[in-house]
């Protein structure tokens, strides 16, 4: 499946800037962002609150529109890419509809995109298995734990089989034990599906553990201070986090955050 010969650019940003009009005047949320993401990469965006990492992800998803520069997804403007179902988006909160069962929630985007009933059932069963939720399809979201709800929301983003998965601090609200497990499962899922993943986080260990590329950002205005290509192998057991290599990358991320005055 994977094209190993020539890397294929999936997301490309050139000099992207974005200004929000607020009550206190204009706010430069992103400034001069240039970045390329290749097919099959796992890219983390890390930085403190207000550094624009979520805004950048939202701009890629055409939920915000940049004022300057060019941003393309699969060679198209972001909103065209969205209409061609280029990506699935996982938000900070699971945001499942309480009046729908887990299976009903997962098939919601499929209903909207007009998949046939049989295909919906087949896809729902497959992605629920993928996130280890088979047997929970008939439950309602409020009957499940927070971690299971977030897994269901990942299943929902996977259901229509987009090549790109954008995740905005999907595990931010979960406790560390659950988060570790979901991180591990996410890596397996990535290996199994060979998707391109954009992942926003403010946890250094999470970013280093998951990513092939770490984008370090800093606030006021939101900009990129460092892009780190991870040297870790693709196959990553949890205890890789104690290795010297891991700690070295984590150190470099921390340095990048400090250089951007992220700790001010």
């Amino acid at each position: 499946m994977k094209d190993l010969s020539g890397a294929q650019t999936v997301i490309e940003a050139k000099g992207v800037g974005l200004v929000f009009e607020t009550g206190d005047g204009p706010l430069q949320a992103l400034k001069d962002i240039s970045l390329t993401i290749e097919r099959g990469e796992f890219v983390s965006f890390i930085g403190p609150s207000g550094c624009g990492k979520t805004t950048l992800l939202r701009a890629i998803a055409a939920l915000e529109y940049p004022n300057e520069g060019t941003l393309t997804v699969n060679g198209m403007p972001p909103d065209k890419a969205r209409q061609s179902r280029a990506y699935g988006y996982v938000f900070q909160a699971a945001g499942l509809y309480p009046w729908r069962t887990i299976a009903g929630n997962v098939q919601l985007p499929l209903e909207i995109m007009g998949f046939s009933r049989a295909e919906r059932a087949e896809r729902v069963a497959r992605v629920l298995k993928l996130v280890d939720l088979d047997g929970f399809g008939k439950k309602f979201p409020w009957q499940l734990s927070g971690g299971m709800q977030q897994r269901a929301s990942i299943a929902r983003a996977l259901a229509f089989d987009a090549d790109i998965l954008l995740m905005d601090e999907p595990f931010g609200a979960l406790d560390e034990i659950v988060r570790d497990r979901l991180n591990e499962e996410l890596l397996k899922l990535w290996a199994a599906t060979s998707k391109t993943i954009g992942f926003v986080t403010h946890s250094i260990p999470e970013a280093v553990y998951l990513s092939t590329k770490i984008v370090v950002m800093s606030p006021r205005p939101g900009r990129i201070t460092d892009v780190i290509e991870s040297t870790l192998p693709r196959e990553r057991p949890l205890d890789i986090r104690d290795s010297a290599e891991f700690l070295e990358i984590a150190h470099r991320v921390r340095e990048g955050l400090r250089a951007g005055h992220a700790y001010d």
Partner: protein
Amino acid sequence: MIWAWGSLAFWALATALNVWLARAHSRNRAVRLFIPALFGATLLLVWEGLVRSLGVSPVILPPPSMIGVRIAESLPILWADFSQTILKGALSGYLIGCGVAVAVAVLIDRSPFLQRGLLPVGNFVAALPIVGIAPILVMWFGFDWQSKAAVVVVMVFFPVLVNMVAGLKATDALQRDQMATWSASYWQGLFKLRMPAAMPFLFNGLKIATTLALIGAIVAEFFGSPTRGMGFRISTAVGQLDLPLVWAEIAVAAFAGSAFYGLVAVIEKGVTFWHPSQRGRA
């Protein structure tokens, strides 16, 4: 005098029993139904006892037994009045008024112009006194149930509209962003997200509207009606000093109103089973 003391003694005993039951056995479903039933029975008995022993004139306040007898005697009249006022006037007006309110709420939600223009007008109409508009609507739509339904439409429209408009705004930014990431159309967003999310709000309005519908349909008959209907019967029976019949109509109205409200509440429970306010009551 035996009636007065007897009923007061029963009241004391029943209250003691109820307090004990409520404290000790309130988890039991049968007991939870029994407590209000006993309370109601006590109220009727004390009423009966005091009215009889103090020799109150039936014109002022008839004893409940007399009202019960009157209900049993006049079942055909009561049924005719019930079907004229509740089934034809109130119910059809309720369905039309609530249906139009939901449709207008969707329009208002879509257009900022209507939001600014129509909501204040709705507010204005809701503030009109029913005794003022009822005679006018009777002039317009005739004496029969159609004019009563029109009064009911005017009365239920605004509370349902306001609740539905609020309900359609009840989704949060995250849910709307999700719909955007799936490139959902306006109608898909409306039917798959915003309508279901608005249901708890809508049912608040629908429940308020049940009582308003009854009041509207009954009061509107005071301003002209065929020779049947609950409002017509109440106003003529008062003129004939036939107070037991007035009370009989009031009892029917009270039961119909409670049943109507209860029916809407049961439907609400089925539709909004997922809402935190309903989940605990499974």
